[in-house]
C-alpha cells in the first residue's frame, strides 16, 4: 500500500469534498473539517521520523505514464520530511487560526478548497522524485496561490497581485521545466535520484550550465529572490492566514527546496556557487534594507521574508562549495552552512508564521496595519505583544530564541567562506560577511520597528477603526504555539538537528554520506567570545543606533524612488507587451467576416495550389467518363446558369428561387446517379429550406445593391475564381489517380451482415449507427440553438461587483 503517495492525494480528496460540506453542513465552521487533514498528515509524518532519522529513505511508486518513464514516485528522505512536516504542521495551525480570522460570511468553501489544493500540491513538490511530476505540482502551487491571493477578488489590488505572482512564478516554472527536460535528456532519466547517482557523467555536457541556470530561474522566481521578489509584497493582498502559510512558511520555500534538492547535481560548480550565494546575499540585503521603509506591517513582513529567504538561499550556495572540494576534513566545514540553512528554514517558518498571525490579529482588532496610525497597544493587547516580541527578537537574531542560533551559524559560515581561496573567493570573499552583517543590522532595525511602532509609544485611538482589544482566545492559540516553538528550539535545538536536519544533510551530500562523514552538527547557544558573537553584538549596537537616528538617514531611500524601481519597470514592460500585441492583432483582426474569409481562401489557393505548382506533385489524367445524355446536359447547364445568376440576383426572392433550382437539380442528378434515398431526402430538405428562407425573409431586410468598391469586387472575383479553379483541379486530379481499391465492397454484403437489402440504409442504421446517432444529436443541438436564439433575451445590465 502506497501510503505516502496517498498522503499527497488526501488533501486533493479533501478539496473535492469541502465544497459539499460547506453547502450542506451549516452549523459547523467548515474549517473544523479542513483542519483534520493537515493534523492527520502531521501525525502520520511525525510517526515516520524514527525511520528517517535512522538514515532510511522511503520510496513508493505509483505508475502514471510508465511508457515515458513518468511515474508518481514518492521519495521521502530527511529533506522531504522536514518540509512535509512544515507544510502539514504550519498548515494545521494556520487553518486553526483562519477559523477565527475569517467570518462565516466569506466564501469559506472556496477558501478551504484552494488551501487543500495548495497543501496537496506542496506535499507533491517536496516528495516527488520524478522531475516532470515535480513540475506539475510546482505549477499547481502557483495556481492555488493565485486563487488564494485573489480570494477577495472584488478588490482591484488583490486581482493585480494575484496576476503578478502568477506571471512571475509561472514564467520561472516554465524555464524550470525546460531545465528539467535538458537534465532529463542528458541523464536519460526523469528520476532525480538517478540523476544524482550518475551526476559524474553529465557535468561535462554542453547543456549542463544552461540547464542549471534555467532550474535556478524557477527557484529564484518562486522564492522571491532579487529581482523577482516584486511579486511577494503584492501577494500580501491575500487574507493573512494565506500570507502566513503560503508566502512565508511554505510555498516560497519551494524554490529553496529545489536548490537544496539539486545541490548534489549542480553544486560544486563555480556558476552555481556564485549564482546562489550572490543572489541570495544580495536579496538578503535588499529585502532588509527595504523592509525598514515600509509603513504597512504586512509589507514590512513581506520584505523581511524576501530577506530571510535570501539568507537561506545564500547559505545553500556557500554549502555547495563542499562538493567542489570533494570529501575531506576541511571541506566538511562548509557543509555546516547547509546545515544552518536547513535549521533556519525551520526557524523562519516558526517565527515568521507567528508574526504574520500577529499582524492579522492587530488588523482584525483595530482595523489598520499602518504603523503611522498604530502605537501603544502593549497595555491593551499584552498577549499579542508578548508573542510579537518573541517573534521579532528571534527574527533579529537575539537570544534566547531560535533565530539567534541560526543567525550565529550563518555568521560562522560567511566567515569560513571568506577565508577560502577557490572560486575567486580570495579577492571577493570578504564581501560576503560584510554584506551579511550590514543586512543583519537592517534586520535588527525593522524587527525593532515592528514591535516599537505597533505596541509602544502613544495609543492613538482616534486614528483607529475600532478600539484595540485582545482577540478571541482561539485566534491566539496558533501564534502562541509557534512562539513557544521559537523558544523551545533555542533550548533543545539538537532534537531538530539530530532527527530531521542531519538525515536531510545526507540527501544533499550523498557522496559525503557514503564516505561516512558526520554531517550533523551539535548546536550550541554559547561558544565563547567568537567572531560571530562579536558580530551579533555589533548588530545590536549599530541596530539600536540606526533605529534611534532613523529620521536622519531616511533620506537615503529617496535615492531609490518608485519611478525607477523594478516594480515600475515590470509594469511598464507588461503594458508595452499588451499595447504592442493589441496593436499588431488589431491590424489583421478587423472584426469583418469578409477579411477573415479572404485569409482562409487565400491560404487555400496558395497552400494547396502553390504546393502543387512548387512540388510538381500534380498529376492529371482525365477519368474514364460515363456517357452523358442530352437530358443530363440540359440539367447540368441549367444548374450552372442558375448558379451564376444568383450572383446577379436583384431581389432575395430571385436568389432563393435560384438556390432551389440548384437544390432540386441536384435531386434530379441523384436520381440519375442511382441514388433514390438521396433524391428523396434532398427533395424534402430543399422544400423545407425554401420555406424556411421565405419565412425568415419576412423578418429580414431586402437585398440591396452591394455598395462595395470596384477594387474590392475585383479582388473578391479573383479569389472566387482562384478557389474554384484549385477546387476543380484537385477534384479532377483525385479522380484520375486512385491510390487503393474502394472499401465499399464490404457493405455490399449488407443483407448477411446487417439484415438490410438497402445498402445505404444499412450503413446509416447499422454499420455506422453511432455516426447517425451523433448526427441526431447535432440536429438536437441545432434545434436548441434555434429555439434559444428566438426565445432567450439577454439582460441588458449585469451586476458589477468588482471595483475598477
Amino acid at each position, binding site marked *: 500500500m502506497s501510503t505516502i503517495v496517498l498522503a499527497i492525494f488526501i488533501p486533493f480528496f479533501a478539496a473535492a469534498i469541502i465544497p459539499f460540506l460547506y453547502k450542506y453542513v451549516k452549523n459547523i465552521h467548515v474549517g473544523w473539517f479542513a483542519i483534520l487533514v493537515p493534523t492527520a498528515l502531521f501525525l502520520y509524518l511525525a510517526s515516520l521520523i524514527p525511520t528517517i532519522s535512522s538514515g532510511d529513505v522511503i520510496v513508493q511508486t505509483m505508475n502514471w505514464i510508465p511508457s515515458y518513464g513518468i511515474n508518481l514516485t514518492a521519495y521521502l528522505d530527511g529533506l522531504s520530511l522536514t518540509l512535509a512536516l512544515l507544510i502539514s504542521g504550519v498548515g494545521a495551525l494556520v487553518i486553526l487560526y483562519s477559523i477565527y480570522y475569517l467570518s462565516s460570511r466569506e466564501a469559506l468553501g472556496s477558501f478551504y478548497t484552494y488551501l487543500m489544493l495548495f497543501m496537496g500540491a506542496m506535499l507533491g513538490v517536496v516528495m516527488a522524485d520524478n522531475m516532470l511530476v515535480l513540475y506539475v505540482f510546482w505549477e499547481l502551487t502557483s495556481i492555488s496561490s493565485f486563487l488564494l491571493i485573489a480570494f477577495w477578488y472584488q478588490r482591484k489590488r488583490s486581482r493585480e497581485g494575484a496576476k503578478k505572482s502568477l506571471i512571475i512564478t509561472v514564467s520561472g516554472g516554465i524555464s524550470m521545466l525546460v531545465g528539467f527536460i535538458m537534465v532529463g535528456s542528458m541523464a536519460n532519466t526523469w528520476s532525480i535520484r538517478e540523476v544524482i547517482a550518475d551526476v559524474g557523467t553529465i557535468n561535462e555536457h554542453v547543456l549542463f550550465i544552461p540547464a542549471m541556470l534555467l532550474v535556478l530561474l524557477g527557484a529564484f522566481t518562486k522564492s522571491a529572490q532579487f529581482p523577482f521578489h516584486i511579486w511577494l509584497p503584492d501577494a500580501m493582498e491575500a487574507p493573512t492566514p494565506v500570507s502566513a502559510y503560503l508566502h512565508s512558511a511554505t510555498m516560497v520555500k519551494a524554490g529553496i527546496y529545489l536548490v537544496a534538492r539539486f545541490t548534489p547535481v549542480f553544486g560544486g560548480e563555480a556558476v552555481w556557487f556564485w549564482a546562489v550565494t550572490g543572489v541570495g546575499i544580495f536579496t538578503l540585503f535588499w529585502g532588509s534594507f527595504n523592509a525598514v521603509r515600509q509603513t504597512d506591517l504586512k509589507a514590512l513582513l513581506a520584505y523581511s521574508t524576501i530577506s530571510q529567504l535570501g539568507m537561506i538561499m545564500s547559505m545553500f550556495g556557500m554549502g555547495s562549495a563542499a562538493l567542489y572540494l570533494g570529501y575531506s576534513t576541511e571541506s566538511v566545514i562548509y557543509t555546516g552552512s547547509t546545515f544552518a540553512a536547513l535549521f533556519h528554514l525551520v526557524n523562519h517558518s516558526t517565527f515568521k508564521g507567528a508574526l504574520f498571525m500577529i499582524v492579522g490579529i492587530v488588523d482584525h482588532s483595530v482595523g489598520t496595519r499602518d504603523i503611522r496610525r498604530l502605537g501603544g497597544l502593549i497595555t491593551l493587547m499584552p498577549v499579542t505583544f508578548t508573542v510579537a516580541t518573541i517573534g521579532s527578537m528571534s527574527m533579529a537574531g537575539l537570544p534566547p530564541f531560535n533565530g539567534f542560533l541560526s543567525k550565529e551559524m550563518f555568521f560562522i559560515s560567511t566567515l569560513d567562506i571568506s577565508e577560502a581561496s577557490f572560486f575567486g573567493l580570495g579577492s571577493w570573499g570578504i564581501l560576503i560577511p560584510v554584506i551579511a552583517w550590514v543586512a543583519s543590522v537592517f534586520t535588527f532595525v525593522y524587527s525593532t520597528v515592528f514591535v516599537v511602532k505597533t505596541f509602544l509609544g502613544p495609543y492613538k485611538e482616534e486614528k483607529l477603526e475600532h478600539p484595540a482589544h485582545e482577540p478571541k482566545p482561539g485566534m491566539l492559540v496558533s501564534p502562541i504555539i509557534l512562539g513557544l516553538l521559537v523558544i523551545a528550539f533555542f533550548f533543545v535545538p539538537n532534537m531538530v538537528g539530530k532527527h530531521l536536519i542531519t538525515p536531510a544533510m545526507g540527501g544533499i551530500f550523498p557522496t559525503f554520506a557514503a564516505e561516512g562523514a558526520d554531517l550533523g552538527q551539535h548546536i550550541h547557544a554559547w561558544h565563547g567570545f567568537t567572531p560571530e558573537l562579536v558580530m551579533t553584538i555589533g548588530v545590536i549596537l549599530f541596530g539600536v543606533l540606526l533605529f534611534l537616528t532613523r529620521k536622519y538617514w531616511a533620506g537615503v531611500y529617496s535615492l531609490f524612488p518608485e519611478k525607477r524601481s523594478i516594480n515600475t519597470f515590470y509594469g511598464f514592460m507588461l503594458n508595452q507587451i499588451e499595447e504592442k500585441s493589441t496593436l499588431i492583432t488589431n491590424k489583421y483582426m478587423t472584426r469583418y467576416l469578409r477579411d477573415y474569409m479572404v485569409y482562409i481562401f487565400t491560404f487555400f489557393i496558395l497552400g494547396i495550389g502553390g504546393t502543387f505548382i512548387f512540388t510538381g506533385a500534380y498529376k492529371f489524367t482525365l477519368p474514364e467518363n460515363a456517357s452523358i445524355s442530352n437530358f443530363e446536359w440540359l440539367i447540368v447547364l441549367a444548374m450552372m446558369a442558375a448558379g451564376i445568376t444568383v450572383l446577379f440576383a436583384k431581389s432575395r426572392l430571385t436568389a432563393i428561387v435560384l438556390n432551389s433550382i440548384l437544390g432540386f437539380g*441536384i435531386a434530379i442528378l441523384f436520381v440519375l446517379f442511382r441514388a433514390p434515398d438521396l433524391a428523396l431526402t434532398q427533395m424534402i430538405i430543399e422544400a423545407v429550406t425554401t420555406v424556411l428562407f421565405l419565412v425568415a425573409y419576412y423578418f429580414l431586410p431586402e437585398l440591396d445593391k452591394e455598395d462595395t468598391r470596384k477594387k474590392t469586387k475585383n479582388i473578391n472575383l479573383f479569389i472566387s475564381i482562384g478557389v474554384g479553379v484549385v477546387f476543380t483541379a484537385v477534384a479532377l486530379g483525385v479522380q484520375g489517380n486512385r491510390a487503393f481499391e474502394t472499401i465499399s465492397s464490404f457493405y455490399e454484403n449488407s443483407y448477411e451482415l446487417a439484415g438490410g437489402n438497402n445498402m*445505404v440504409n444499412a450503413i446509416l442504421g447499422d454499420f455506422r449507427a453511432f455516426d447517425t446517432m451523433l448526427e441526431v444529436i447535432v440536429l438536437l443541438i*441545432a434545434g436548441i440553438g434555434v429555439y434559444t436564439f428566438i426565445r432567450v433575451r439577454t439582460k441588458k445590465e449585469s451586476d458589477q461587483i468588482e471595483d475598477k
Partner: protein
Amino acid sequence: METLVTILAGVLVTVATYLLLSKSLIRVIIGTAILTHAGHLLIMTLAKLKTGTVPIVGEGNPVDPLPQALILTSIVIGFAVTAVSLVLAYRTYQELGTDKLDKLRGDPDE
C-alpha cells in the same frame, strides 16, 4: 459525365466563395447552402457515376453505396446549419438593425 459534374461543382464553389465574401448576411447564408451542394456533387463524383444499379441487394451490380451514406448525413447537417444561421441572422437584424457585416464589428474594447 464525371468531368462535367466536377466542373459544375467548380462553378458552384466559385459562386459560393463570391457570396461568402459579400457584405450581406443573407448572401453569405445562401453561399453556405450552395457550397454544400458543391460538396455533395464532389463526393458523388469521386466514386464514379452510373457504374451499376441502385445500391440494393439483388438488383444486380450496385453503384458504390458509401458516398451516398455520407451525403445523406451531410444533407441533414447542411439543413441544420442553414436553419441556425438564418435564425442567427434574424436575431442579429432584430437586435442591431442591420445585416451588413462591415457594420457588425462589435466594440473594439470587448
